[in-house]
């Protein structure tokens, strides 16, 4: 690949002899500053809202109402409406919390880590992947918040001077989680908003309606594209990426500490932090693909979200899927190698215990199926990829369910064993958050540019300066 122009398809070099199919470009040829700006901003400003948007938003809103009803009923009756009870004190709530947080991680990976690694292809997917992060974290936050049982007292988790003279317990991983997740939510929101500022200025300048000019104008804060401003902006953006990179690794590490710090067999293991982070990225990329494939088709964005993006995401899924498979292997190996009968009972119980269909289902979804991504024809078929991504989402949900429920339901003393059965309200809260997530995403697609216009301009061939200018 030409290092100066990552957009150009690879030249006919020696590899052409081996008939390697050409890598698709990051942006379809023929685009200019003007066309990129117009195409992306028209989705928000001028184009008619597609019928699919109304149907999707309507359906997502119905599930959001289901969430509201479920949470209202929960506040009225207490968390007894959920199926979790001793010994399974954590079930759907924490499963869903970990699942949603994990999904968010791909957004930060794409926006921060791939930026630091100078992966140009991230540009057209980072904006909506970051939006996905924010909405996923919002959905995640609902579960621990309501699992406290008294969500109106959740501010007790924050260290603030109070008349009870009580302070949070900083030796507990649960308070680490409060700090990790709230920092993650804040930094993700900042990163997303900073990225939006120049595009909000574009929308302000291009909006035909007064309301649009006023609202986008206030959000753009008077951005005028000054060279001095861009310089500080770029510095801030790069620093944020550098800060978000260790942050995203720390967040799922801390989430895994919620389990690993305890002494419960199945939880008390050192493989958890790396295995949780890999699993998070795995599920997150599956969710980005689940969203990107229909969005590019509905909005006709095949020029910007090209097959290059789709294939790269499929490859990231394959790699992280293999790390997750390694994690399962090590978990089972360590249980056997520990020669501890409680530890070695955990995998046995997962393979053959009452929840065996979930465990085998998880292996099929997360390990077996994803191996098909080794085949190029699968990676280039969007319909098949969409289905695989959906199944990986299910598989990663099952993984968290297995980790949480099967470890809790049979611990040391058989006299304290029990079973967990989900209730209607468990399911309704879960599907409700999916509705909330999608409803927020639909609003985002309608009112904000889903692709970073400023960053797209910068990677156009037009933006390349001649070498005599570059030297100075």
């Amino acid at each position, binding site marked *: 690949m030409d290092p100066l122009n990552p957009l150009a398809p690879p030249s006919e070099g020696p590899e052409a002899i081996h008939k390697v199919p050409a890598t698709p470009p990051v942006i379809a040829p023929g685009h200019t500053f003007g066309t990129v700006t117009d195409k992306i901003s028209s989705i928000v400003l001028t184009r008619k809202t597609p019928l699919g948007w109304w149907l999707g938003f309507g359906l997502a809103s119905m599930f959001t109402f289901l969430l509201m009803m479920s949470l209202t009923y929960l506040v009225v009756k207490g968390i007894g409406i959920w199926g979790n009870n001793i010994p399974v004190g954590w079930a759907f709530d924490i499963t869903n919390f970990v699942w949603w947080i994990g999904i968010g991680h791909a957004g930060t990976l794409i926006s921060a880590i791939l930026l630091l690694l100078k992966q140009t292809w991230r540009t057209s997917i980072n904006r909506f992947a970051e939006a996905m992060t924010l909405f996923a974290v919002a959905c995640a936050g609902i579960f621990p918040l309501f699992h406290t049982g008294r969500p109106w007292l959740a501010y007790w988790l924050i260290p603030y001077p109070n008349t009870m003279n009580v302070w949070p317990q900083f030796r507990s991983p649960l308070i680490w989680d409060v700090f990790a997740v709230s920092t993650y939510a804040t930094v993700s929101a900042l990163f997303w908003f900073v990225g939006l500022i120049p595009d909000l200025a574009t929308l302000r300048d291009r909006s035909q309606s007064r309301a649009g000019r006023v609202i986008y104008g206030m959000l753009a*804060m008077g951005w005028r594209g000054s060279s001095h401003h861009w310089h500080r902006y770029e510095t801030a953006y790069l620093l944020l990426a550098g800060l978000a990179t260790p942050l995203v690794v720390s967040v799922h590490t801390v989430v895994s500490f919620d389990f690993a710090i305890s002494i419960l067999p199945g939880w008390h293991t050192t493989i958890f932090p790396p295995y949780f982070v890999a699993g998070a990225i795995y599920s997150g990329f599956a969710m980005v693909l689940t969203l990107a494939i229909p969005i590019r088709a509905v909005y006709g964005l095949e020029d910007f979200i090209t097959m290059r993006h789709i294939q790269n995401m499929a490859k990231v899924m394959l790699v992280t899927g293999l790390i997750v498979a390694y994690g399962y292997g090590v978990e089972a190996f360590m249980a056997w190698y520990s020669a501890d009968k409680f530890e070695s009972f955990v995998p046995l119980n997962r393979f053959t215990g009452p929840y065996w269909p979930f465990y085998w289902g998880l292996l099929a979804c997360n390990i077996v199926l994803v191996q098909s991504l080794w085949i190029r024809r699968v990676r280039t078929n969007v319909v098949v990829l969409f289905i695989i991504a959906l199944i990986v989402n299910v598989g990663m949900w099952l993984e968290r369910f297995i980790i949480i429920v099967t470890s809790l339901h049979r611990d040391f003393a058989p006299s304290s064993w029990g079973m967990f059965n989900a209730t209607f309200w468990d399911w309704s809260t879960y599907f409700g958050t999916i509705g909330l997530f999608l409803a927020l995403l639909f609003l985002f697609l309608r009112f904000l540019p889903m692709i970073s216009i*400023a960053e797209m301009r910068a990677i156009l061939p037009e933006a390349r300066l001649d070498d005599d*200018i570059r030297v100075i």
Partner: protein
Amino acid sequence: MATRSSIYGLMAEFDDPAALVTAAQRARQDGYSCMDGYAPYPIEELHHALGSPTTRLPLVVLIGGLLGCGGGYAMQYWMSAVAYPLNIGGKPLHSWPAFIPVTFECTILAAALSAVLGMLALNGLPQPYHPVFNVPRFALASRNRFFLCIEAADPKFDLEQTRRFLETLNPREVSTVAD
């Protein structure tokens, strides 16, 4: 005609980034110092061509991060060992390994807030009014046009001469920016 005090500067409009960078270089060679370039995306070469100093933002972020780090740790120490000492599983009151995750998160949070608020503050944003928006064509600065504005505050600024100078740079148009 507008008097000098009511003029913010003169603005030349260009079609492509190379023309703007060249124009900025020429203006600097010609002795202008008080000017700014406007582009729809960041151009590193433009920053160099204008001779602008490197930002102090990294220092702001470093200080923010260090304060977050120290503050986060001190908060945990004070709360766990001084204000509310509890014996948890026989661990020492100052059980520093347990304080690392929250210290780390506080560092990142404070540094990220410093990066964003510092960037906005150094850029003088939010700024509800700026004279460059008085030029109607400036709306294209956020689409596909490139602008160079030599400000009236420049010691070498002269309405006639500066306009003539800007005309030599092959702009699409030179407009007067009202203050």
